[in-house]
């Protein structure tokens, strides 16, 4: 008896929808095992982690706050990954975007009018895009590996933030705490729906819907999908791989930068030495769990946001280390990628002997 992977003739639509669900189920199972071997009741653990955050208004609002940047960044990353550009540096683009966006209220605190916030958001998007264009240009000009360069720039961005907050951008009236000044009202993202969520949430949903339409219905979306699946066919179609690399990195960077600006101007209201609990990295999982589809990413963003809130929940209620959230996120990515195999392959249990090694060769 052995297990075989048999290639399907076409992609399975059912599996494309089912594979994230299977992945979440397997992750929950693994989490339960983790809880039990650390001496906790697995059912209570799972409840506290995945369910309880959804039962209370404050935790639901917190989940939306966390999901918003994840979804926005994840949508941009999906465009990159669909077109075969492996942008791992969204965390850095998020930070640099935040820096660009905050430059206005920090350096010109007296510039307070209706244009303040839109300008901040614009600068934030530009900053993120510029930071993302560095690995893109290196890739198109010198053929460097964008996975490495984009990742390394995350740490450069982090140090830049650290330097600015502790140095030139420190609040002059802040008793030497490493914080910028608090933003004025004109520079603060307003809340909507009676304070239930920040304006960033509806903006994110609009962006995701627009991207979903672009991907599914337009020639640009077609170009992105073709390039990801078959670059040779893409160049036969007349699409330029280099231009698309620049485009997708710039778009992903702009969205990450926008998310960064909205985070500091909304949730934090000032610049701190650390402004992200790893949104840029978690968004990679969000993008894949959402099947690189903006609508799927909205759902996936909520699932991953839950893991942040749930991690805090199990820590305070059960004394399990907060790090369990990172472990569960990692497991989730692992299972998502593994389950994706099922979209193009099916599993067959067989008692027969077959030489798969050379079967593929023939």
């Amino acid at each position: 008896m052995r297990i075989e992977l048999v290639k399907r003739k076409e992609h399975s639509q059912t599996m494309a929808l089912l594979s994230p669900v299977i992945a979440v189920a397997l992750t929950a199972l693994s989490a339960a095992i983790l809880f039990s071997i650390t001496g906790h009741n697995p059912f209570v653990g799972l409840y506290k982690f995945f369910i309880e955050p959804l039962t209370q208004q404050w935790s639901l609002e917190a989940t939306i706050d966390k999901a918003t940047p994840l979804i926005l960044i994840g949508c941009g990353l999906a465009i990159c990954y669909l077109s075969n550009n492996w942008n791992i540096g969204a965390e850095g683009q998020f930070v640099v975007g935040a820096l660009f966006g905050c430059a206005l209220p920090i350096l010109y605190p007296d510039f307070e009018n209706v244009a303040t916030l839109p300008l901040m958001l614009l600068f934030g998007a530009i900053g993120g895009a510029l930071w993302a264009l560095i690995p893109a240009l290196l890739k198109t000009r010198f053929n460097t590996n964008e996975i490495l360069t984009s990742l390394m720039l995350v740490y450069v961005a982090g140090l830049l933030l650290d330097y600015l907050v502790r140095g030139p951008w420190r609040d002059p009236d802040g008793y030497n705490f490493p914080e910028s000044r608090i933003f004025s009202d004109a520079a603060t993202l307003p809340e909507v729906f009676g304070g239930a969520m920040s304006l960033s949430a509806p903006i994110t949903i609009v962006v995701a819907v627009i991207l979903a339409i672009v991907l599914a219905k337009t020639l640009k979306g077609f170009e992105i999908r073709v390039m990801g699946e078959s670059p040779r066919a893409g160049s036969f179609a007349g699409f330029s791989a280099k231009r698309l690399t620049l485009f997708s990195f710039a778009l992903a960077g702009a969205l990450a930068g926008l998310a960064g600006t909205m985070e500091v101007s909304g949730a934090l209201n000032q610049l701190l030495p650390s402004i992200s609990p790893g949104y840029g990295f978690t968004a990679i999982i969000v993008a894949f769990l959402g099947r690189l589809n903006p609508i799927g990413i909205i759902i996936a963003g909520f699932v991953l946001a839950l893991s942040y809130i749930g991690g805090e929940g199990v820590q305070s209620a059960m004394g399990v280390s907060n790090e369990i959230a990172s472990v569960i996120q990692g497991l989730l990515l692992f299972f998502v990628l593994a389950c994706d195999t099922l979209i193009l392959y099916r599993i067959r249990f067989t008692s027969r002997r077959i030489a798969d090694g050379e079967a593929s060769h023939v």
Partner: protein
Amino acid sequence: MGDSVAETTLPEVDETVQRQDRSEKETLLNAKGLTKRFGDILANDNVDLVINKGEIHALLGENGAGKSTLVKMFYGSLEPDAGEIFWQNQKVTIGNPASARELGIGMVFQHFSLFEALNVVENIALALPNPGKMSDLAKRIETVSRDYGLPLNPDDIVADLPVGIRQRIEIVRCLLQEPQLIIMDEPTSVLTPQEADQLFLTLQRLAAEGCAVLYISHRLEEVKRICHHATILRHGEVVRECDPTLETAASLASMMVGADVASVSAGDTKPDIGETRLALQGLSAGAATPFATALNDISLELKAGEVVAIAGVAGNGQGELFDAISGEMRVAPQMVQLDGKPCGSKNITWRRKQNAAFVPEERLGHGAVPGMKLSDNIVLTRHGTGDRLVGGGFVSNVEAGALEKRIKQAFDVRMSHDDPEARSLSGGNLQKFVVGRELDRKPGVLIVNQPTWGVDAGAAALIRQALIDLARSGSAVLVISQDLDEIFEIADRIAVISRGYLSDPEPAAAMTRERVGLLMAGGAEAQGEVA
């Protein structure tokens, strides 16, 4: 085919072996009732096959007839759902290729599995269970390859070798294991006529020594020439067995497709030659990678109303020439001209808008995106050519779907359900689709690389006729092909490409296979250097 060599040097082999009665010979492999099912498709249905010792046995059939499935069961890479295989009268179960090789069954694949950066002896050592010392192996390779008339230098790097020699490596690799049955899948598709003759000598010698050969080919003339017996598969069943020497190519073809194959006719009327549509002037381009071929000062004028064919053995610059004409590789503006407009530096979409169309050699992954639906694959090459497929940046799925249906009907593309992913079509059907997608536009200039490579006889005839019809309707057609039968069937003028040099095109009526063979073997190069 250029048969003078083999027929004059080996008359006794032809005479003695072919005329023998099959039943007198010793049975080597006897397959009874082999059945293999893939999902809904019955790939092999109760197939019986007997291969005798010392027999060159042809396995004929259209694409999708079940030939590959059958030989994979012999080679152990597929297991039959039902049926039995007897090897020298012993019932055997061939579980994997290693046990097939232990029995004495070897296989030479259509697509080579060689590492280009390694040398000959290293490549062979990788495939042997016990390669032993490299120096000993190198000596064995030299001896065996010389004995069988396939001389190899063990120290040559594969990347430097032409395709014909690469195939020798595969064959010698097989011979080193002293097989009693060699399965060959389309071995001559990559060879010049002269190289093919050399291979036939080797096969006849092997047969004379008692080794059996199971020979898969689409080239009926060569099957007629060298095979002793033929089994014909259609839709997974054995429909006929015959002695190919007693048949004609046309009768073999009609057995394969189950009906008379429409013969391709160039029409009695002389082609009405018009203006120059495509001109290449001193087209040169360096090799982009160590494994690519440089193009050297290629000039050609392609006129409205004619089919010009470029013959040549694979890997002599055909792909690079195609890329330069299509615009996937950019060159100096004057080097490529469409209707007198310099466009060497323009992109492929610009050239398509000039009413040029292109069909590349590789169907999946170049001409079509494997995981995308056929309607999406229509958008792939026609988004810029004003078929109302794109409006305001939005792709119209309705228009694309309508085009897909039109092409499917006009070119008889068969599919299990409407608008499937490209990867699920068989090679012949996908080729009909890829060619049909371009012909549907009625392009003024059509460039096709290997129009019927690996395509069954019925589909090939349909495609060739469509190419001729396009030219007769006033378009210019350039066909790059390795198939000489095809070239002589459809071309008005023939040029030969060799190591990146192109010979002057000559009228097809004045060309012979021998002359084409000489040009392939380097004559084109000499001509190019003189010119």
